[in-house]
């Protein structure tokens, strides 16, 4: 009895330890990849270095990517310090508009229609804070994986309509004829489908529901937004939904690619009508290259083509923007920001992001981004 209870205590401490390690792991994870690949990077050294301190705040979706970029930039330019605080897109825009940070990170571009209850648009407020037009510069591409955990099923193809019906609770078991029809040769069990969603408001949810609304307009009737409108159980953050799927037979969710890879979860192939596409960096870049520029000039607002039928294009993704003043109030800071963004958008840095779960900007968009960065002053 005594031994048993002692073992139980050991179990508890063990879990507490694992929890702490896992949390600590989040922070240190990037550093190791940075040091292993940082020395080989010479692409950033072609950028003119600037000195000083720069701070940014916003989207958590791009946090790992920007941390990597910051580490690399600071290695190349020892005189520069860049800080990025991942507090959420809303907070990033707010802090940028309040003039607290030199650049904001956001999952969506500044809105030119007023949000509910506000009198000025985000764009107008940011322009006013800058004293010059504020620009949205797409920088990080975050693929969204549809991950599942069904015993004995290692390959799964989903169409937009079937995904929508799974996520709004119309299809409730894995051996539903609708799933079987698009997965010939796969033996599906009668397990109940357990849908998990992000309980915190997030850009991942927003982009995933936008995809469902655009690609399956008849099946997905709920609204799209940062808050989930389908069915299922809500878990906190990407780690929460990923862990829930991992622990639940019959579970399915949408999550950032890096979490799907780290937790070794099975990812569904997406068939928009042009054949099933596996989630790979080139497939995501290809889908992004089809996005339309909805902004004007150097204010690059990308309108993603979620319905694309292009073969080999993976359509579920999100793009995070860096929001910056086209004419910085502080010349030295503006120069540092320009130099940092230039290094961030460089092909070397973008390619490196693939190892931590992001996709590189496609060439056509990278060109526009570089033009915009060069025009910053």
């Amino acid at each position, binding site marked *: 009895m005594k031994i048993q209870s002692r073992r139980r205590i050991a*179990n*508890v401490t063990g*879990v*507490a330890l694992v*929890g*702490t390690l896992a*949390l600590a792991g989040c922070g240190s994870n990037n550093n190791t990849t940075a040091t292993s690949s940082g020395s080989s990077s010479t692409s950033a050294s072609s950028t003119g270095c600037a000195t000083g301190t720069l701070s940014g705040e916003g989207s*958590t979706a791009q946090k790992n990517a920007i941390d990597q970029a910051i580490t690399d930039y600071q290695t190349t330019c020892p005189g520069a310090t860049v800080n990025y605080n991942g*507090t*959420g*897109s*809303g*907070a990033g*825009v*707010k802090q940028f508009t309040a003039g607290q940070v030199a650049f904001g990170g956001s999952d969506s571009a500044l809105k030119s229609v007023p*949000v*509910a*209850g*506000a009198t000025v648009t*985000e764009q107008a407020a940011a322009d006013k804070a800058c004293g010059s037009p504020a620009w949205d510069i797409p920088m990080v591409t975050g693929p969204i994986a549809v991950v599942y955990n069904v015993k004995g099923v290692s390959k799964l193809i989903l169409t937009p309509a079937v995904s929508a019906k799974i996520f709004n609770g119309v299809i409730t078991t894995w051996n539903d004829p609708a799933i079987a029809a698009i997965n010939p040769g796969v033996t599906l069990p009668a397990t109940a489908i*357990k849908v998990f*969603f992000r*309980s*915190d*408001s*997030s850009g991942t949810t927003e982009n995933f529901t936008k995809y469902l609304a655009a690609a399956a307009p008849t099946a997905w009737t*709920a*609204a799209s*937004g*940062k*808050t*989930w*409108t*389908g*069915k*299922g*159980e*809500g*878990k*906190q953050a990407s780690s*929460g939904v990923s862990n*829930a799927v991992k*622990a*639940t037979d019959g579970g399915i969710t949408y999550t950032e690619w890096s979490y799907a890879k780290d937790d070794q979860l099975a990812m569904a192939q997406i068939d928009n009508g042009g054949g099933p596409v596996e989630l790979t960096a080139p497939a995501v870049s290809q889908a992004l290259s089809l996005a339309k520029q909805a902004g004007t000039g150097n204010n690059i607002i990308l309108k993603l083509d979620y319905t694309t039928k292009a073969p080999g294009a993976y359509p579920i993704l999100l793009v995070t923007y860096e929001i910056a003043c086209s004419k910085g109030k502080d010349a030295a800071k503006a120069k540092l920001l320009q130099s940092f963004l230039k290094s961030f958008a460089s092909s070397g840095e973008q390619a490196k992001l693939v190892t931590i779960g992001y996709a590189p900007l496609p060439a056509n968009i990278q060109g526009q981004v570089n033009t915009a960065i060069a025009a910053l002053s």
Partner: protein
Amino acid sequence: MPNITGVSAVDELSGPERHGPPQGNRASTGRLGDRIFSGTARGAGILVIAIVTLVGVFLLSQAIPALAKDKVNFLTSTQWNVDATPLQFGIANLLWVTVLSSALAMVVAVPLGIGVALFITQYAPRWLRGPAASLVDLLAAVPSIVYGLWGLQVLGTHMDGIQGFLIKIFGRLPLFQDAGVAAASTILTVAVVLAIMVLPIVTALSREVFAQTPTTNMEAALALGATRWEMIRTAVLPFGKPGVISASMLGLGRALGETVAVTVILSALAGSAPWSWSMFNGGETFASKIANNAAEFDSPQKAGAFMAAGLVLFGLTFIVNAVARAVINRRKAFVE
């Protein structure tokens, strides 16, 4: 002799030294030390009142504009739609989940806490009292994120059986209906974790009051032939009741406002989920709802809606404490 008849020793004094025991405000002698002390004490009191009032004012000022635009009944609606116009938000779900999880937590924690306190003060051998008390207090030092992870990953895996058993026996009652949420993430699991979190508060305060039971009362009970349990029932528990009540209320306040552990454990439900009274359902409490959405307050109206929810929690805690105070005041006469 006059001492026995109730005449104080001061009466015996004569001359300039003759004055009664200091009373009330006149206790101040006007010396610098006295004035500094009474000033700081008064300042501390005013500061606390000011902080609480300002928190209330802040919540009100943020919430009122959003509440004015709310198109559904704020208290009875279950909708939460703050992104679009018209603004529709109500707190019925949040209120139910918050109250249910905290109430269940108290059902577990209060009897357990009283039991632990009685064991430590009445039954435990003297050498065990100190270590046992410290160990319980140590529970209060565990960060709530650890409780959250433990609840989800350890306790949660053992809740399946308990939950299945309860559903099998009481399943027909609305409170015990199966809601299809994984056992590790139900309101009941949260309640058990909350109970463990408030246990040290209930235990520590109860222990203190039980320890102060007048020895004469206890000895009198024992002398009249009471057993140990009868002595506790007739002497210790009545004496400690107000203390136990205020300890419970302090614990309840913690349970109502707990954020991180609840956010980690409890499964949120989509807005379209049907209303359920069940303790095996998921949901969000006031605090977890605000925490889940705090990063994306992009409009004053949206923030206002969440502040309004926070205001209800503020009010709820206030009411709970006021009721507790009233109960304690009514009991006081019995104790003295």
